[in-house]
């Protein structure tokens, strides 16, 4: 037992104490849950993710095969909930498989950006000095390219020669697909291209957050206990930087999905007939001729997903901000 009894045995409070002098400010500091909309957003995203993962085993038609008599049929025709598109393919099944492609591209590219960009940003913000100067210049160079141009160039660079036709084979995932010139499928190309575009953005944000956290005294205190730089970065700084990164990343997924759509319009997205939400919008973008259900189904899906991502990103940020604002 201790030689001296404690001066004050003073246990903390179960909830965050309010700064009384700033009682006015304390007005906003209630415990943030996700809120109703937050939970709805999360539910939608989980649904979309499940649908995307389970697509092959779901009881929907083949998204690339037209169904006799379904062309240009509206909603609820003949057992097909969302009707058929101009070629007679089932819109619902295209939506389901489209979710797969879009999510893969969206999440994949952001992950790439997060892992590579986040790491580089963390190093650059923590070490400062020459590493920072070098890396920051790198980011600036990449950011100087208009994002679309950069994405296009990367896709063109990685893309198979036209005429080797990898599209049809890749659509069904057959093992006998001709290996494209660069050895990558279209989805992988898109992930890399959009990921590289995302890297400098995420790196800059990570660097900025890291700069402010790395100066805090608890980092100095850990260093004073003999921790190496790597340990300081991972244990002290990274846990504080991650919340900001994740909320940005969630927003980034939405942006990537839209970007894929833009690339589809330019003809370099996921090749038809493999559906993605982006290329569904693209192929039906001639509003006059396109069947309404075929055009608006992917639009609504993208809209809902983007809203859910944005809202959730915000909610995550708010949840972690409160913890910091009490400081």
């Amino acid at each position, binding site marked *: 037992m201790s030689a*001296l*009894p*404690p*001066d*004050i*045995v*003073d*246990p*903390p*409070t*179960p*909830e*965050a*104490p*309010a*700064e*009384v*002098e700033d*009682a*006015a400010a*304390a*007005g*906003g500091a*209630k415990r943030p849950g996700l809120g109703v909309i937050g939970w709805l957003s999360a539910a939608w995203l989980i649904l979309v993710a499940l649908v995307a993962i389970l697509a092959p085993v779901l009881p929907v038609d083949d998204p690339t095969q037209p169904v006799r008599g379904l062309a240009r049929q509206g909603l609820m025709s003949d057992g097909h909930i969302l009707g058929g598109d101009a070629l007679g393919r089932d819109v619902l099944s295209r939506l389901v498989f489209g979710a797969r492609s879009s999510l893969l591209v969206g999440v994949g590219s952001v992950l790439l950006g997060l892992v590579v960009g986040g790491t580089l940003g963390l190093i650059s913000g923590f070490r400062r000095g020459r590493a920072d100067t070098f890396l920051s210049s790198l980011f600036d160079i990449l950011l100087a390219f208009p994002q679309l141009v950069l994405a296009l160039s990367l896709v063109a660079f990685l893309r198979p020669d036209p005429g080797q036709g990898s599209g049809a084979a890749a659509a069904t995932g057959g093992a006998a697909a001709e290996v494209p010139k660069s050895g990558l499928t279209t989805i992988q190309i898109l992930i890399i291209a959009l990921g590289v575009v995302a890297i400098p953005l995420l790196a800059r944000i990570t660097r900025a957050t890291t700069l402010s956290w790395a100066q805090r005294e608890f980092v100095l205190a850990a260093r004073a206990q003999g921790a190496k730089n790597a340990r300081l970065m991972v244990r002290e700084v990274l846990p504080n930087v991650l919340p900001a990164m994740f909320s940005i990343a969630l927003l980034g997924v939405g942006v990537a999905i839209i970007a894929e759509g833009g690339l589809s319009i330019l003809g370099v997205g996921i090749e038809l007939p493999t559906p993605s939400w982006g290329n569904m919008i693209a192929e039906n973008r001639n509003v006059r001729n396109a069947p309404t259900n075929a055009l608006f189904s992917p639009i609504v899906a993208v809209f809902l997903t983007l809203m859910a991502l944005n809202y959730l990103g915000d909610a995550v940020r708010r949840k972690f901000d409160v913890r910091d604002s009490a400081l």
Partner: protein
Amino acid sequence: MSTDHLLDVRAISTTFGTPRGPVRAVEDVSFTLDRGHTLGIVGESGSGKSVLSRSIMGLVPNNATVTGSVRFDSFEMVGASPRALRKVWGAQMAMVFQDPMTALNPVQKIGQQIIESIREHLDYSGVQQREAAVALLRSVGIPEPERRLSQYPHELSGGMRQRVVIAIALACGPALLFADEPTTALDVTVQAQILDLLAAQQEERRMGVVLVTHDLGVVATRADDIAVMYGGRIVEKAPTDVLFREMRHPYTEALLKSIPRLDLPSHTRLEAIGGRPPDLLHPPRGCRFAPRCPYARERCHEVEPPLEDAGDGHLYRCWYPVGIASEQTTLASVVEHAQEREPGDAVAAEPVLDTPADEASGAATDPPSTPPREVATGAGDGTTGDAAPARDDPPPAPPAPEGTR
């Protein structure tokens, strides 16, 4: 002496509406102030002293409700329209804030910030405005005032910035000045300069000054009257000499005993006040200081003491005040008095402060019966006692932090 005071505050209470319930930051505060006098308001964080000065001025946020009456030169401030208040602010009543770094706009030149106030209230031409600004800067002791007019705040040192803040406050010659911790962020030598400046300006302009601070040393030497605040209430108020010579409230006494003093030898064990400031969401039922008070008895926890008048302008709020034996206690003898009295008896009789034997907190220099022993706040809510006695304590609620000023 005219019965018309410059400032007459009666029963001011300020409550903040928060999602967790109403927070009573200031309760039932009354005092008066005359021209040429200085009132010092002393308290720690959570005492409500800053909220008080802002409530009097009317500078409270939307979720605050202020009740009571504030008569400034026969104009009622509480409930006045924003338009009417704006005529008063700056021109008649001004405030000097604590942090000169944030009180000045970093992207505006100094001159602009001073002239802003002049332009609002006085009818001067452009040239006259500039001249007035230069004269002001000179009067607050800033060298080369003409050059300073076109400088930005970051080009000035902390002490200079605070002088500018004071200049802005005095620009239109107000009759009443609130100084809210004006020197806390400054070095001690600069603090002395600034306090001298305030005193000189007060004398020259015959202003009334309300000096809000946590530093007893500052009010001891600069205030005519002192009000000690705790938990939103005034617990003691007296002319400065009287307060230090004949303090009545245990908090005042505890405060004085807990600060390190230059005339005490090294390694003097300080008598810390145990526990933490009260939670203003759920204030204790009786006296707000009772949970930490070494002399507290049952009545203190049940009923809030009213303000008593000891004559000579000395008010206090305590059922069992110290020094009531009416000897003149000087600061030096405060400790001896504490040794003489045996509050331990009264306390032992009540099961209130039933902390186990950790009051022998190793205080080698003071005798063990010295009252302000460190108290274990088991519930962490301002009540005392690990084994919280079977009484109706308020539910354990998050207390205010002792914290950071």
